[in-house]
């Protein structure tokens, strides 16, 4: 029986090899060159066996991986590697007191020392990664908890960046003339951008309250693109396609910093805001509000039947998600000192969504890990830059097929209940 299966696999792999040879024939075998207006075709026949072998090999590998996945039951969330690592780490920390003190201290120390020991380039790379962590944590509220697929998330990011950019553009020069240090606009913008984005989140969610799944995805996608178009075409206000340049980096108590010092400063600001985001998101996740959002993700009809107002719930979801994108937008504007509509394309939304899915939908450590992998690896493997999209695609397919819960799946809060009486929730992470 098993022998039969392997033979069938090999036969199908061979067929697929032939099919690939046929498909790729015009691309890899035929080569048209035009010399002096005359086209000539050269046939590179020796590419055929290469394509064939690669396709057969790939097909066999793929089949083997699928089999292996089925047998291992890797989809069982309790049994996945990520959960086992998490459990192992928490068990180790519980037993080893020294490690419980030293490891977090080392981790915190490394995060704090990072911009001081690495150069400006690496600091800036890390800042962008942290900004994306914040974006992903925000989107995680919408997609991971609320289960609402939002493909226009970059629009809220843009709202944040433009709040700071426009505030500076329209009041900054005047302030400088009067003799007031304009850099405090940054500090005003941080909360302001969050709330403006929140307002946009609520505005967007009003027309999409009845939608779900694919329809919601399409509408939010359209919203994101419309928003970018508006930014691009209302040049008088937003600066149009050329955007806004020379946005000031934050000053350090009235002292203008060198670009390097400013990068270090922004790094610390971003890091503390990320920590703040994690804190807030975790609090929400383990609360009445978070439970209601999750119930909505699981089953809207049952959720309503339990007395939960879906309209209110969706407004909360979009507003909370948009808030963090707004704050992250201010950081982006301050870091790059230049924003234009091209920084907020659909691609940005998809990047963040991909980070959430690859990392582990709904899981805070997962989302952070996913973002860092997706943002940092490309920076350190510049040589492979032209295959970036290809690798993202492959990573996505592999994660969805083999680890649909992501790298570090969400662990549910466990409650330890004694017989009769005292209760104590045992937190996770």
């Amino acid at each position: 029986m098993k022998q039969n299966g392997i033979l069938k696999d090999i036969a199908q792999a061979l067929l697929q090899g032939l099919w690939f040879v046929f498909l790729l024939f015009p691309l890899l075998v035929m080569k048209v060159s035009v010399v002096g207006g005359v086209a000539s075709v050269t046939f590179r026949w020796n590419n055929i066996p290469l394509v064939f072998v690669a396709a057969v090999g790939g097909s066999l590998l793929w089949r083997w991986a699928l089999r292996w996945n089925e047998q291992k039951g890797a989809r069982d969330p309790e049994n996945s590697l990520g959960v086992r690592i998490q459990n192992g780490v928490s068990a180790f920390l519980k037993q080893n007191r020294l490690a419980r003190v030293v490891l977090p201290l080392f981790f915190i120390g490394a995060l704090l020392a990072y911009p001081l020991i690495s150069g400006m380039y690496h600091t800036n790379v890390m800042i962008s990664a942290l900004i994306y962590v914040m974006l992903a944590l925000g989107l995680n509220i919408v997609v991971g908890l609320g289960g609402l697929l939002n493909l226009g998330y970059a629009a809220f990011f843009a709202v944040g960046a433009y709040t700071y950019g426009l505030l500076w553009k329209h009041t900054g020069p005047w302030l400088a003339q009067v003799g007031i240090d304009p850099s405090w606009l940054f500090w005003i913008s941080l909360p302001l951008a969050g709330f403006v984005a929140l307002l946009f989140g609520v505005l967007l969610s009003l027309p999409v309250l009845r939608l779900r799944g694919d329809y919601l995805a399409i509408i939010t996608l359209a919203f994101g693109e419309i928003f970018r178009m508006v930014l691009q075409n209302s040049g008088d206000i937003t600066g149009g396609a050329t955007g806004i340049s020379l946005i000031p980096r934050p000053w350090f108590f009235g002292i203008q910093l060198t670009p390097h010092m400013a990068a270090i400063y922004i790094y610390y600001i971003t890091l503390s805001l990320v920590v703040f985001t994690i804190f807030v998101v975790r609090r929400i996740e383990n609360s009445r509000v978070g439970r209601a959002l999750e119930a909505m993700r699981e089953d809207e009809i049952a959720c309503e039947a339990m007395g939960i107002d879906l309209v209110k719930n969706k407004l909360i979801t979009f507003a909370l998600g948009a808030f963090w994108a707004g704050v992250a937008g201010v950081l982006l504007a301050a870091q790059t000192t230049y924003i234009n509509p091209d920084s907020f394309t659909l691609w940005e939304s998809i990047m963040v969504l991909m980070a959430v899915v690859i990392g582990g939908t709904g899981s805070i450590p997962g989302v952070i890990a996913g973002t860092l992998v997706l943002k940092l690896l490309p920076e350190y493997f510049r040589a492979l830059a032209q295959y970036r999209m290809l690798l993202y695609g492959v990573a996505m397919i592999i994660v969805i097929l083999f680890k649909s819960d992501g790298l570090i799946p969400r662990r549910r809060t466990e409650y330890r209940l004694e017989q009769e009486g005292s209760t104590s929730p045992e937190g996770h992470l």
Partner: protein
Amino acid sequence: MIPMKEDTILQIEGLSMVFGGLRAIDNVDLYIKRGEICALIGPNGAGKTTIFNCITGVYKPTEGTIAIRNRDGTPEYIHGLKPHVINKKGLARTFQNIRLFSNMTVLENVMIGRHNSLTAGVFRSIFRDAATRQEEERVIEESYQILRKLNLHEFVNERACNLPYGAQRRLEIARALATDPFLLLLDEPVAGMNPQETKELEETIHLIREEGHLTILLIEHDMSLVMNVSERIYVLDYGRLIAEGSPGEIKSNPEVIKAYLGEA
């Protein structure tokens, strides 16, 4: 003032529900008395679940009125209200095709049922002040007690989707009870259960009625449960009410036999 008898807790009059050309429910009158266990039976496709959906606000009825008697004794129309509003008024339901929050734990499922007995909003959830912490502890304890009542306490931290089938059905009831209803609507509570489990659930239904001063309306195909548990039965066929009475009367009603077995 809504004309309603003193002991009536749910009053449906002239209810019709039309889907396109199909009259799924046709001019149905239903009166449920306070504290009784009443069954709604009928062949497949008779419109039983549609009536439930009309009562709980999933559908807006095409014609007719649905009124309840609130806890304070005042009657009130509820047709056309949204499902979550109707739930808040004290009507809770279970679903025929189990609709649990399957990736959440058993305890969390019940905690969601207690949503409206809590008050923490976004800001209080973030700041988690003393009142919010107490509230959370209280809801955990209350939910645990409900799970005990339905004999589910061994599964507290289990994901709902990993539960055995019978336990999932019981969890649906636990979740509905958590919303503190005065009227409980059970849609085929023992579908797919074995006779032993059915027997146990029968006792549970009696128990929750006594303890919670509940009124129960249930849809069921399992005749042994219907006959043992219910005090009054309504029979529905092709969207019309064809009979009403005690289990004994229904058993011998020729109309009902015809509807179930077809014409001889």
